[in-house]
């Protein structure tokens, strides 16, 4: 039973390794981690080593000396494989050193998977070493030691991934560490192959790294593998099943959130619109799958390009901005368009679209992006060519966005190419730079026009109310006049009537009194000359004296006081 346990351990080791490779490969594809990919290669090279040993064992059990031809083929294959391993190591190394920043997706799953593979490797190597020691089998012990490196390499990957989670770009570094381990495995195989080739011995006697273990005795190997021989059927079966399983597992594919998948069998579409998740199809030559993001909104820019890197953004983007620096780069060929009145206008257009029908998008048109761009340009030109520059700049700007969308969708539907235009926007439309000042002066003139009218209106508003106020005042004054006049008349009438009443009672007295009172009131202030009755009125010329009281007094000889 001792031998059975050993062989079982060897077989279990190979089987588990195959599964590990599949797991790591899947994780590497899903996450995009380079270190995981390297780790998968590492495990794969391990399997090869184990297989080589077992096959060698199987043959050696026969105790026949293998032919020289066979030895040569075997050893050459070993050397070629070591070169393949090196090459893969080199490819990963180059990728790791590349400029491109590796983005890792589905990080938790990758970490979990790596963790599982570390634990698996750990138990595997402990198990192999334990079995090897208890059964006194150095080969298993050595194999166990090798599985330990496998664990280390997975730990390196884990460190890389955890670092990525914390924001360090350790993944390429981890990949390089694993690459180093791969190179060592390759070196072991290469060494053994060369040695065996040179000494003309069969590969199994070199027995790879087992040779390095001093107490290994060749005879013991022979005895050991002799016992395995009866089980070679099982070995073949397990290996076959593992390989087939791994092959079938390559049929797994995944559509990420937002993606849709199409499955083709021998090129013919058999499934469309596969929703996100993990799905299965037949492996390579039979079926293939294509995933595409159908939720993402794509953009076409016409008249300009958005620069990925830019500096010196101006304070504001004006009509005459030439976009030599800043966020946008202008494309004059695209931007300048003829309007319906044969003027030129500078237009930028942004079209947003998404893939509406993925199968049509993939299989109907050869260069969807180019067509999309061409059709967008054709649509915008077609509509701009029908309108005058003035309405384009003002009233019809939004209207034309809608029209372009409609027209463009019409063009695209005609090609049947599964694109849905979600939005058309004209972020910029203005006269060409060469005539911007003229357009500005029109705006100034329009302001002037407004100003003239406003000024006139303010004149109107000043003059008319004032006239109304004047009119009102005149009326009020007239009314006051009327009232005053009547009142005064009434008063005078009353006075007269009162006087009359009195007068009637004593006519002559009153008359005389009134007369004399009036004379008293009137005469004191005046210059008076009194002519004696004898004096002739004719000779008196008063004209020289009327102006001067004094000379008159002198003339009269102080006739008055």
């Amino acid at each position: 039973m001792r031998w059975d346990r050993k062989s079982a351990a060897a077989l279990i080791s190979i089987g588990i390794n195959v599964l590990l490779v599949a797991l790591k490969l899947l994780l590497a594809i899903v996450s995009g981690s380079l270190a995981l990919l390297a780790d998968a290669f590492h495990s794969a090279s391990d399997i090869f080593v184990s297989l080589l040993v077992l096959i060698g064992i199987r043959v050696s059990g026969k105790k026949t000396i293998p032919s020289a031809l066979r030895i040569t083929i075997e050893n050459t294959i070993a050397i070629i494989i070591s070169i393949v391993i090196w090459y893969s190591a080199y490819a990963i190394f180059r990728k790791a050193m590349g400029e491109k920043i590796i983005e890792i997706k589905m990080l938790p799953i990758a970490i979990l998977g790596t963790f599982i593979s570390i634990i698996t490797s750990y138990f595997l190597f402990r198990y192999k070493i334990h079995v090897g020691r208890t059964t006194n089998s150095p080969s298993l012990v050595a194999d166990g030691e090798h599985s330990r490196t496998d664990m280390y390499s997975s730990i390196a990957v884990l460190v890389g991934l955890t670092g990525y989670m914390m924001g360090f770009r350790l993944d390429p570094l981890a990949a390089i560490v694993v690459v180093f381990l791969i190179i060592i495995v390759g070196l072991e195989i290469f060494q053994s192959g060369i040695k065996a080739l040179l000494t003309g011995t069969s590969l199994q006697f070199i027995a790879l790294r087992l040779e390095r273990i001093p107490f290994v005795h060749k005879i013991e190997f022979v005895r050991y593998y002799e016992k395995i021989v009866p089980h070679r059927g099982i070995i073949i079966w397990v290996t076959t099943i593992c390989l087939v399983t791994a092959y079938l597992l390559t049929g797994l594919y995944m559509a990420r959130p937002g993606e849709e998948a199409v499955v083709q069998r021998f090129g013919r579409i058999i499934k469309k619109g596969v929703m996100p998740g993990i799905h299965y199809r037949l492996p390579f030559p039979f079926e293939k799958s294509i995933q595409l993001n159908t939720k993402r909104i794509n953009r076409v820019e016409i008249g300009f390009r958005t620069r990925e890197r830019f500096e010196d953004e101006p304070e504001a983007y004006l009509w005459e901005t030439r976009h030599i620096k800043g966020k946008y780069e202008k494309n004059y060929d695209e931007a300048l368009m003829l309007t319906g009145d044969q003027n030129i206008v500078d237009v930028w257009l942004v079209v947003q679209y998404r893939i509406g029908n993925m199968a049509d998008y993939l299989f109907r048109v050869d260069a969807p992006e180019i067509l999309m761009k061409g059709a967008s340009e054709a649509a915008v030109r077609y509509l701009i060519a029908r309108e005058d520059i003035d309405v384009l700049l003002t009233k019809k700007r939004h209207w034309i966005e809608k029209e372009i969308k409609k027209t463009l969708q019409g063009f695209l539907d005609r090609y049947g190419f599964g694109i849905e235009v979600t939005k058309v926007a004209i972020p910029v439309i203005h006269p060409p730079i060469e005539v911007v000042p003229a357009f500005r002066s029109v705006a100034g003139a329009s302001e002037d026009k407004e100003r003239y009218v406003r000024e006139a209106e303010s004149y109107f508003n000043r003059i008319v109310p004032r006239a109304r106020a004047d009119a009102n005042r005149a009326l009020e004054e007239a009314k006051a006049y009327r009232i005053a006049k009547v009142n005064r008349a009434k008063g005078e009438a009353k006075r007269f009537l009162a006087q009359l009443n009195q007068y009637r009672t004593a006519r002559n007295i009153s008359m005389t009194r009134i007369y004399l009172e009036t004379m008293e009131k009137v005469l004191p202030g005046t210059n008076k000359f009194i002519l004696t009755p004898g004096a002739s009125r004719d000779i008196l010329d008063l004209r020289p004296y009327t102006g001067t009281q004094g000379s008159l007094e002198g003339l009269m000889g102080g006739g008055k006081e």
Partner: protein
Amino acid sequence: MKRRLLPLILSVIVLVYIINTVLFSLDETEIGIVLQFGKPIRVLSKAGLHWKLPDPIQTKILFDKRVLVYDPTASEFLTGDKKNIVVDMYLCWKIIEPLKFLQAVRDRGGAELRLEDIVNAEAGAIFGNYPLTAFVSHDEGEMQLARIMNLISERCDQRAQQQYGIEVIDIKMKRLNFPDENKPSVFARMWAERERIAKKYRSEGQERAAKIKAEANKQKEIILSEAYEDAEKIRGEGDAEAMRIYAQAFGKDPDFYKFLRTLQSYEKFLDEKTTIILPGDMELLELLEKRGSGASHGEE
């Protein structure tokens, strides 16, 4: 082992070769021809698994059957009214008869070369029949861009189908502009146009302003004159009423009124500047004359 391994490897190689050259899959995007010793015998258009005899006997050629987009370089044309325009078009085409296509143009590059020739020839001929206003115009009747492009596309389609087994699905005008040398004159025209508009705006403003001012003056005159009319009427009323009152009162004794009013007038018009010559024999002064007797009389 040796005896079994070698034949196994050999037979696997042979099997792989045969499977590879006999069975082949045709993608959804492809159309294929099977040739027997170089002679076409079958056209395959349905995607999926197909078979043929192994390679040296029968071979296959695959073409793209999708809509192909071709964007030739922009070229300059002359319109019917002798104006130069630079036009950039793109065209969508596809292979519909792979056999004819293979014989006539061999591959996509060859096809594009010939398509460009056809398109430029047809476009040149057709553009020459239309004035510029057929390409750009705000007038629905004049604007015929869609018709022109359809016409070009139809003619090209006819020729391409006949000669190359190509269907021209659509030709569209991506860009239409004047050549760079003509642009300055367009810009000059735009300047002049703007200046005219600016002038128009200003004089429109002045016109409206003048109208508003005139209206203001008119309203002012109307309001003031109407108020004057009313005010005079009211004053008249006051005067009339006063007259009536006077007449009524004074009519009771016109002589007394005359007497009183005359005396009142004296009060008003006789002031310090008045010089009065009083005859000594007037009644008021008669007492002055007879000084002696008058004095005693006066003291009385």
